[in-house]
Structures are given as structure tokens and as C-alpha cells.
């Protein structure tokens, strides 16, 4: 199968995706950036990107269906669940927050991991869910990331992680901080066996998530306009007592500052990722590609 074949057979994907979603034509969303109203059906057929290039946040399901081969994803480690081992309660007990988040997202925690294919090339993937407690990283997120990395170490297929996270999950105290080291440590091992890791940073990727696995891609890609930072803009404004310039800590800013390889429109993501994993992976045999 040639490279061109891969790309041409993609055209039908979106309409199929749209059908599957089965959205009635009269529902609409407001774009947070240009404030225009957009029909959900139009939005879905445009990769949930507004004409002004605002990229709406996606659920893991939406993202996987947009990017990977139809039906190719098989999730693993669905049974790992968070434990409120500190009996933490802020304005609400952690255990209640967990229950609500599970109900809302239908996921056990803020990341989904598994294997999929991309133009028939097998990949290990992780997709974070900002809808689950702000995509915060506690023990379960850290463990699942470590596990998908370990799968990549064993099966030698590339790793792609889509981040969308406010950072460490404070409700798990210092244990959540340690997930930064745990995930980064696993990536060091991946690096030592020369398996490529592509980090795709989506809005928002901040705090402990950006300061660990999100920034450690062999290639770092971001969706346009994503907020990517260590300290959030509000904290910085308090520190320097000044307004930050427009576009500060957004993808395009980080690209200019040398932190990202590319800013990629969601429409082009599937093809760029395919090309990159095909080119970078030294473990790809001719059989895998042809």
C-alpha cells in the first residue's frame, strides 16, 4: 500500500463519523473565541473546529474516532480506579468528586489508554479527558501512563499521548506529585530502546502534566491556541502584577519559543502523525509499512 493510498481513502471518514454521532441539525454551540453560533452538525463535520480556528475540547472517544483507524482502538486497564487514601475533602469530599466525574464521563479516571492503528500502523495511545476533574493526574493517570509506556517498550510500536490536563491532582497530595517522576522515568526507559514518543498537547496542558510527560515527546505537537504552561496565567499575573500579552502561553507562542516542533490543525493531525511514526520508528519493518 502506497503513502498516497493511505491518504486518499480518508475522505469518507468524516461524514461517517458525523452519521455515527447522529446529531439533530438544530442544536448549536457558541464558539468561546469568536462568539459565533455554530450548528453542532457543522462543528462535527469540521473536526469540532470553528471557522475562526478555535479547537473545541474533545472527549477521548471523539478524539480517537477522529484520528485513528475506524474500530481499531482497544482499550486496556479499564478497571483501575482512584482511591481516596488521604480522606481528602475540600469544598467537597474527593470520593464524591470521583463519583460525579465517573458518572459524567463514563470513564474511571482522566485518561484512556490502549492500542490502535493509524493508517494500519499499530500504535500505543493515551488520551486524556479534561472532563474528568480537569484532567488532573493522580495515581491512576500516572499508573496508566506508565503502563502504556511499558507496553510500547515491549511491543516496540510508537507511543502517542494526547494531553489535556490542569496538572497534578491535589486531592492525592504528594502522591500525585510523584506521578510526574513516575511517568518521566518510564519515558526514559522508552527512550533507551529507541521507540518514538509523540506528545500532542491539547488545550489546556498545565502544571505537573506539562512539566513531565507532555513536554518530553521526541516530537512535541500542539493543537492551535492551546494553553500550555507550567504556572497558570493567573498565578503569573499575581507574581508580576501586570497583564500578560495576548497569545502568551498559547501553542503558537511556545512554537516560537522553541518548545514545540509544530502546531497542527486537527484536520491535518492524522496525516502528520502517520508520517512521523512511519519515519521515526526504527523498529518498523517493511512488512508493517507496505
Amino acid at each position, binding site marked *: 500500500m502506497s503513502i498516497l493510498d493511505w491518504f486518499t481513502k480518508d475522505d469518507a471518514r468524516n461524514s461517517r463519523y458525523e452519521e455515527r454521532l447522529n446529531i439533530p441539525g438544530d442544536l448549536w454551540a457558541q464558539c468561546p473565541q469568536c462568539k459565533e453560533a455554530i450548528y453542532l452538525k457543522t462543528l462535527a463535520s469540521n473536526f469540532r473546529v470553528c471557522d475562526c480556528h478555535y479547537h473545541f475540547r474533545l472527549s477521548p*472517544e471523539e478524539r*480517537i474516532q477522529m484520528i485513528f483507524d475506524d*474500530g481499531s*482502538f*482497544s*482499550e*486496556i*486497564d*479499564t*478497571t*483501575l*480506579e482512584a*482511591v481516596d*487514601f488521604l480522606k481528602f475533602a*475540600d*469544598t467537597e469530599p474527593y470520593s464524591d468528586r470521583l463519583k460525579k466525574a465517573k458518572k459524567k464521563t463514563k470513564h474511571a479516571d482522566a485518561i*484512556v489508554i490502549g492500542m490502535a492503528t493509524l493508517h494500519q500502523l499499530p500504535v500505543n495511545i493515551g488520551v486524556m479527558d479534561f472532563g474528568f476533574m480537569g484532567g488532573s493526574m*493522580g*495515581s491512576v493517570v500516572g*499508573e496508566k501512563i*506508565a*503502563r502504556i509506556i*511499558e*507496553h510500547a517498550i515491549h511491543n516496540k510500536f510508537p507511543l502517542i499521548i494526547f494531553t489535556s490536563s490542569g496538572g*497534578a491532582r*491535589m486531592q492525592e*497530595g*504528594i*502522591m*500525585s*506529585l*510523584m*506521578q*510526574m*517522576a*513516575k511517568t*518521566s*522515568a518510564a519515558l*526514559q*526507559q522508552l*527512550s*533507551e530502546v529507541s521507540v518514538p514518543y509523540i506528545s500532542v498537547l491539547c488545550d489546556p496542558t498545565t*502544571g*505537573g502534566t506539562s*512539566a*513531565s*510527560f*507532555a*513536554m*518530553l515527546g521526541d516530537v512535541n505537537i500542539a493543537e492551535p491556541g492551546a494553553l*500550555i504552561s*507550567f*504556572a497558570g496565567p493567573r498565578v*503569573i499575573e499575581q*507574581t508580576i502584577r501586570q497583564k*500578560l500579552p495576548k497569545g*502568551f502561553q498559547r501553542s503558537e507562542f511556545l512554537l516560537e*519559543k*522553541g*518548545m514545540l516542533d509544530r502546531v497542527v490543525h486537527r484536520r491535518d493531525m492524522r496525516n502528520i502523525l502517520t508520517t512521523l511514526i512511519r519515519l521515526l520508528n526504527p523498529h518498523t519493518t517493511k512488512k508493517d509499512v507496505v
Partner: protein
Amino acid sequence: MKALDFEKPIYDLQEKIDELRQLAASTDMDLQSDIDAIEARADMLKAQIYASLTPGQIIQIARHPNRPNTLALANLLCSDFVELKGDRCFRDDPSIVGGVGTLGQYRVMIIGHQKGSDTKEKIRRNFGMPHPEGYRKALRLMKMADKFGMPIVTFVDTPGAYPGKEAEERGQAEAIAKNLKEMTGLCVPVVSVVIGEGGSGGALGIAVSNRILMLEYAVYSVISPEGCASILFRDASRAEYAAEKLKITAQDVVDLGIADRILPEPLGGAHHDWQVVSETIAAALADELDRLSALSREAVKADRYQKFRSFGRYKDTAIQAVSALPSAKSSKSSKKKL
């Protein structure tokens, strides 16, 4: 010495004792029995106060301006300490310092946060809050140590990585992340001592170590209690409460299985006797380095990886158990199709 508010009663008694002593000296009166009595009361009070410190009070000790700092400890531990500077890229960040010296029988690389003691130095050292170049300097020195087979000792004492405009522009997230990853690849023993404040990612950025030791009144936290209170409780005044909930004291961090060992401080805290503190640290480091140096380079690296790999508390509903030490393989039974 700055008195912390909960130490006020002790300092009041101490003042009274000093007054009595002066009086005795100037008037030739014999006040020894009174002095002895008050001193005994002061000792009891001290013991009581320090035996029941709240996390909020412990933080105050951890942040005490006179606590021993990295450069002071480096010079107390090594008679031949030579500071080395620079990230070879942008700037020398004075909020992280490092250098080489002889510690017992080991040639070591010492790296740590440096807050500064007087106002001018505090400003110059940005109150111990590093910019990305601080982490990059630390990594440069760690790689040098790795190359020359020198064990690494890091001293952790920072409110956190600096949350400023330039720090973000120059890649604070990237710099910390890179350290977390690269420290895992080091083949020499790395021992960290949290000597004061272990503030979040800014602390962890030099603490991916084979052993994590904590001074008795040091703290280690994912976020400052103040930050936590204002974000989660939307009420900055609830910092004391947040400090309790976050489990940040040395004992808590040991109980959670993260820190390996608590190093006792002199009564009242490390700032009362740097010499004693440095001796405690020297003994603990010698002990840990002896054990780690017995391992091969690969085993040292594997030991560090296993330590961090094991961190996490969660349950697997498929196997109905809360696990703190998961196996590396995921169970096949837990697959599902989307």
C-alpha cells in the same frame, strides 16, 4: 534569631532568665535557684511545644530564615567544596547551586536550592525559586557527576519553581520535565535530603533519587498549603487546614512510602545548631552511599526506577485490591472495545 509565633512563650522565659542572670551579676545576689527553676520550666515547655507541633507550625520551622542552607552544608560537609556555575546556555541561576567536594571517602557532586539569608541575597537568589536555567545547570552538573562516577547529593529547599513570565518563556515546564526524565538515566547513586521546603515540581526537579531523606521539620508537598487553600477551598485563610489535609510533614511523607528516612533535628529545629545538623546529614549520607555504592551502575539505575515506578495508590476492580505496588503488566482481563 527570629522567634516563630508559637515559640514566643519559650523566648519570653529565656528573656526572663537572661534578666535574672544580669541582675545576679550586677548585684551579687544569689538567684541561681530561681534561674534553675525557670530554666527547668523552659525546657519542659520546649519539649511540650516541639512534641505537638501542627503541620502549620512545622512549615514555619521549615521556612525559618536561619535554617542551614545548601552552600553552608556543602562547606560543613566538605573541607574542599568548589562551587561550579552555569547552564552553558543562558545564565547562571543563583537559586540553584552546585559543586564538587570530598564527603568522607566519596568524591561527590552536591546540588541544591539556595534561598539566601539577608534581603539582598534573597532577592539575588530569587528566594530559592529557580528559573529553567537553574534546572539546566543542575542537570549539567549531574551529567558531569555521572561521567566521572561521582555520587550526587541534592538538598531540597524551595517554595517552588518561579512562576514568572521569563521562566515560562524559557521553558520552565520543559526544564523540570527533562530533569525528571534524565535523572532516571543516571548510573551513579543519587541521595536527596529535603532540608527545608520541598515545594512541588520545583523540588522534585532535583529529587528523582535513590533515597529521599527528610530533616525532621522539613516538608514536602504537591502545592503550598496557601496555594491549595486558595484554589480548592477558595479561601486563602484555610492554609492551616490545607497543610493538615495535604500530608506534608516528614512523618507523613515517610508513612506514604515516599521518603525513606527522617533525620532528627536539634530541639527547636535545625536553625539552632548547624554543626549538629551537618553531622547528622553526613552520617546518614555516608550510610546511604555505602549501601548504594555496593551496587553496579546498572543496579543503581534500576533501583531508582523501581522506587518511582512503585509510587501510586489505586485499586483494580478486576482483582479487587488496593495496590501500591502494581506489576508492570496490565491484566489482559481488563480490555474493552470502545
